[in-house]
């Protein structure tokens, strides 16, 4: 498939999806809310993740349990 065709197809799909979503304002609201919530969570993750993740994970060693 030519690059342009592919782009056009993607655009059509995107428009189609957008049209479907627009049909139901509740879904739009819900989708927006989830996106916002997830963005918020993503921003917070860096605050709680250890600065030196690599070292931390490497050092996470337990004795085997049951």
């Amino acid at each position, binding site marked *: 498939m030519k690059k342009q065709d592919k782009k056009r197809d993607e655009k059509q799909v995107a428009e189609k999806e957008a049209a479907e979503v627009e049909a139901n304002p509740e879904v739009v609201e819900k989708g927006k809310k989830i996106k916002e*919530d*997830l963005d918020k969570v*993503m921003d917070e993750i860096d605050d709680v993740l250890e600065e030196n993740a690599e070292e931390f994970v490497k050092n996470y060693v337990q*004795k*085997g*349990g*049951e």
Partner: protein
Amino acid sequence: MKNRIFGLETEYGLIFTPHGKVYLPMEKILGYVFEGLIPNSWPSNAFLSNGARFYQDTGCHPEYATPECDQVFDAVVHDKAGERLLERCLPVAQKRLQEEGLSGDIYIYKNNTDSMGNTYGCHENYLMRRDVDFWKVTEQLIPFFVTRQIYAGAGKILKVAGRSHYFISQRAQHIHEKTSSSTTSSRSIINTRDEPHADAEKYRRLHIIVGDSNMSEYATYLKVGTTAIILAMIEDKFYVDGVELDDPVKAMREISRDTTLKKRVRLEKGKEMSAIDIQRLYLEKAKEYLSLVEEDPISRDILERWEFVLDELSEDPNRLDREIDWIAKRGLIQSYMNKKGCGLDDARVAMLDLQYHDINQDRGLYYLLDRGGMIERIAAEEDIQRAIDSPPQTTRAKTRGDFIRFAKAKNRSYTVDWTYLKLNGYWEETILCMDPFSSENVRVNELIAAAEAQK
């Protein structure tokens, strides 16, 4: 639902990360954690006033065993109460560290693997009728447990041939046998350890070590609930036929490795089926069974959620990112990778894979999702808080809780186990409690009443 006792035992991962170069043996850290629970002592095995048991397990893990529950919902609530209890111990332990001039952080994880490939478990216990043929139990349960991970798995990034890959289950790679009595060397799908803590002529205990620890209450509810229904079916000789697997251990790993859930595993008779199809056979048989026995709302609720989950998994697993641990965590990881433009092998992603299971609600990523309203809860926080001090009111745990509260109020030393209670020194008779379904004990009541009368 049939009268049954449930209990969950969870082993937690524990690590201390020092600021600077300090070495502290894990035993010492665990000692500080326990101090948060019972001050001025160093008990490595303690029964609590909610009837639960908190102790140091093999490999220096804190382990919490819920009290005897006779409702699936109670098992979910009491499992969470164990998390909260441990979380409460953290500030106390941190303070003790500071007092000793040590600076660093303690982390407790409710997961099943470390970075070196060591594993620790979440064990489920179900009281079963003794007179059921155990061979039949094994035959019926193995395909069920092999496939249950599609909704009970907690997800894990592992390296395969140098490449990071997301697996459905934390525990699947550590299971090596179909059946075995060992819980530490050759871990098995069906463990044959049989300590019923009850009349052993009537009951046996089914000890299941194959499952992952769940952060999601929904997943815990479903895994215990569906298992309880299957057990009732086996006890009533209501069997699912034709699902014996050719190599269950291998099938379990194959299923865990394929997050599209399309993988078909080989059955004994040469046919191949997907995990969803096998679970559907159990679901359909369960529906048939429950239509024949007395209708009850709890079984119906479990059945509805089970069907919902299988339907969603068939359509698109991502739809269950509120309910199922491996899917919720994967969604989080995916969003993070998109945002940072990094891959599954990034150290921050490995950290995220771990931090999802942090029981500290300020740090844990499961709790971050929950605060954002992105997790489907089963229990109310009030119920969990109540369960920290209060045992289930309809099982032996109530008697144990009453006794421990009494002994503590009277400042008496006591010795307690699952089946007996004893006040040390003063009133040396041992009170036996062999019936886990009995919430009242005449002698415990007399003891408490006598003490009341003296007031």
